[in-house]
Structure formats: C-alpha cells, structure tokens
C-alpha cells in the first residue's frame, strides 16, 4: 500500500524559542481513517497546517501525496491543495459569499462543470440539513451550522485527502452523527484518506481507524 503522508524527523514551530512538534516520525497509508487527539495547545492544528503546506517544516522532511513540502513550489502546492479538503477549526468561510457559493469554492477552483457543481452542492446541503438556509451568509448562521457548511465545502470536490480540525466541536450528537457519516462515506466509497482532529472519538465507528496522540511535541500511535 502506498503512503499518503510520510514525516521524517519533522519539527514545527512558530518562533525560534518554542518548538511545537519536535523531530517526529510517522506515516499514513492511503485510504486510512486517522484520529488525532491531544490536549488543548498540544499542536494538533499546527500539525494539520503543515500537512496543507501553510506552515513550513523547521527541519526534517514531510511528504504528502508524493510531494516533499519542505521547499515545495507554489504551483505544486496549489495542485496538492486542490485535491485536499480542509475543515478549519475556525471554519474560515468567505463572509461575502452565501453558503451555497462557499460550498462551491473548491469546485470553482477546480474548474468543474456547472451541472456537476449544482448536483454536488445540493446533495451536500441536504446531507448536512442546511438546504433551507442555502441563500444565507455565514454571519447569519449558528455556530454549528457554520461548522456544517465548512464540512460540506471540504467534501464538495471529492478530495483524496481530508483534513478536519475538530469538525464536531460545536455540534449536538445528532448533527455530529451526520458529519461522521459523511467522513466515513468518503473514506469507504471514495477511498479518501481522512485525518480528523478531535477530543472525542465517536463511540460507534463503522470503519477501522488509526489513532495518534500528540503530547509534549511528540506523536505516538495509540493501540
């Protein structure tokens, strides 16, 4: 099985005097469902940032989908990102676009056909139970609704790699269930690799998963 992510002696930091991730080694096989846990401030979001190339490795090597991110070119990184779906912890929805257009964003960037786009957005809106709100702007939604929009956007272009940062933090159990369904579906049917940061691994998981824990700058697999 080929590996989607290979980290070799990877270190991450925002400033010289504070290393967040310290010389870690790990790898993720293609098509795996991965949970990442860790205390608040332990470096989970930081690790995700490095995976989509927003934070350059301090040292060591990080290979995602065959692309070495340490010193990657802008255009290669863009290509990688177009096949990645991200749910940010703070959602990062575009304020001046309604939620329909927000979900379309990766499809617009990918240059998809408008019929495909329409279908895809429609079915995702239904799945996250926001069809009736499709014309609203992000500020007019509740926190959990915004989070569901972010989830729908991350999945709209059927990415091969999905990175989700606490995608159910603001959701009740029922809504959270919808999200887990979506992620499991992408993993099972589209063979997408899914990496989820969460504080609580849902009790009923229908797919096999791996679990990494971050503590004191190192990453360990929990078995």
């Amino acid at each position: 099985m080929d590996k989607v992510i290979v980290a070799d002696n990877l270190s991450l930091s925002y400033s010289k005097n504070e290393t967040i991730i310290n010389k870690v080694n790990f790898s993720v096989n293609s098509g795996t469902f991965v949970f990442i846990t860790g205390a608040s401030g332990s470096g989970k979001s930081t690790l995700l940032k490095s995976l989509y190339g927003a934070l350059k490795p301090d040292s060591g090597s990080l290979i995602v989908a065959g692309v070495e991110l340490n010193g990657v070119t802008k255009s290669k990184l863009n290509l990688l990102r177009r096949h990645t779906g991200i749910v940010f912890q703070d959602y990062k929805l575009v304020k001046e676009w309604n939620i329909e257009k927000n979900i379309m964003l990766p499809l617009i960037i990918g240059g998809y056909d408008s019929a495909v786009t329409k279908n895809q957005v429609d079915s995702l809106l239904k799945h996250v139970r926001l069809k009736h709100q499709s014309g609203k702007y992000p500020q007019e939604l509740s926190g959990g609704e915004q989070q569901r929009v972010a989830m729908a956007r991350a999945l709209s272009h059927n990415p091969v790699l999905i990175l989700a940062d606490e995608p159910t933090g603001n959701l009740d159990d029922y809504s959270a269930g919808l999200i887990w369904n979506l992620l499991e579906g992408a993993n099972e049917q589209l063979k997408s690799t899914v990496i989820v940061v969460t504080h609580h691994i849902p009790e009923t998981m229908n797919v096999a998963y791996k679990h990494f824990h971050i503590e004191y700058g190192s990453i360990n697999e929990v078995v």
Partner: protein
Amino acid sequence: MKSFKNHLSLIVALLSILFSIQTFIIVDRAIDAYKEKLVGNYSLVIVSQKRVDKKDFLQNNSLVINIDELSPDIVIKRLNSGISSKNIKLLKLSLPKFYKLKLEHYPSPLEINNLTHKLLRDKSIIKVETFSKSHDTTYKLLLLFKTVITVFALSVGLVTILLISKELKIWQFKHNERMSIMGLFGAPTWLRSAVLFRLAVVDALIATVMGFVLFTYISYSEWINEEFSSIGIDVLIYDKVTDFGVMLLVSLSLSTLLASFIVLGHKEEV
C-alpha cells in the same frame, strides 16, 4: 445593494482622479489659448529714419513674423486733441517712419531685450518702443500663474496618490480574507485575483462613462462658457475622442495597478 456600494467606492475615487486630470487639461488649454491671445495683442513699435525692407527684416529676425508700417496719423492721434492743426502738419513732415512688429510667440523680458539690442545695432533704427512696463506686468503675472498651477497640480497629485493608497488599503481589508481562503484550497494567483481585476475593469469603465457624461454636460453648461468668454478665450472643455481616450486609459491602468498591488502585497495567512 451591498455589491453596488462596493463598486461605488472605487468609482468615486476614480472619478475624482479623472476630474482632477481633466481640470488640469482644461487649465493647460486655457493658458495656451491665453498665450495665443497675448501674442496677438502684443506688438513692438520701431522708429526708423529709412524705409525697412520687409523680406530682409523678417529673415534676419526669426522672432518677428510680421512688420507693418504705421501711418503717422495714428502716432499723432494720441496727442491730437491738444495740438493745433498747424502744428500737426509740421509734426507730420518731420516725423520718421513707424513700424509695428508682430512676434511669433509671447516673448520673455530677455527675448525683448535681445531683440531691442539687435534692432538698435542698425543705425537707421532710432527707437524701439517695447511697452516694457505693461509687458513686464503681464509676463510676471503669467509666471506667477504657472508657479501656482504647478504647486496646485502637485498637491492634487499628492492627495490623489494618497486617495488611491487608501482605496488600496480598503480593498486589502475587503479581499485579503477571501483570497487567503481561496489560496488554502489551491486557487492559483490569477483565479484568486480574478474578482479583483473584474471589479477593477468594470469600475474603470463605469467611471470613464460617468466622467464622459459629466464633462459633456459641463461643456454645454452656460455658466462655464460665460466664464470663459468673459475672459475672452475659447477653450475646448472636453474632446469627446482624445479626452475620452485619456480618461479610459488612466482609469483602466490605475484600477488594474491597484488590483495588482493588492495581489502582490497579499500575505498568506498562517
């Protein structure tokens, strides 16, 4: 509604810049027209004891474009009400020849000086009347005029540059977030900034058309035309071809420049 307001702010900024530029063009034309008028009114008078050969004279003095002999009557007329007709006859007989010179352009005091010296080197020319005092007055006024216009144009330029930079900042506030988010989903730079450039081009076109309407209206306005005709000059306020072209060019290049700056100055969010 919201998107209309977005457009408005850039359009107003562009329009104000177009307005400043067009005003400057009009002023430039007015000064040129005025100089044209001045040279038409200004002339030198020379007094010579011999008849002057016109062709020769014009060839030797490139600044002069015409020389006409004055009838002595005109000269004497200036005093005629106080002198008896007998004396006038006497005067006429003893008077030398008078010539009026037309110049090619409105001369500086130095040019007048040089010309006078050159003319007086000819022994037969006994006097060059330059009306120097009145010439000096007008010339210095023109100088002051130009200095002031320059200073004002510089201030308008300065404030305009500031205005554009403010607009730039506002655009940055508005578009940075969206551009960052698009970047995080792998949008290449051109796509991220497509909205920006479309906005820039559309707004530039709207502003140009509005400028066109505004100045066409102004050029038919009675007040403006009265103002100019009271000064006695005829100025083209808005040339529907050239000026429109200049406006279009300026607003297009300014707004695309604005957009480019934002794209270049855009920092990725971490």
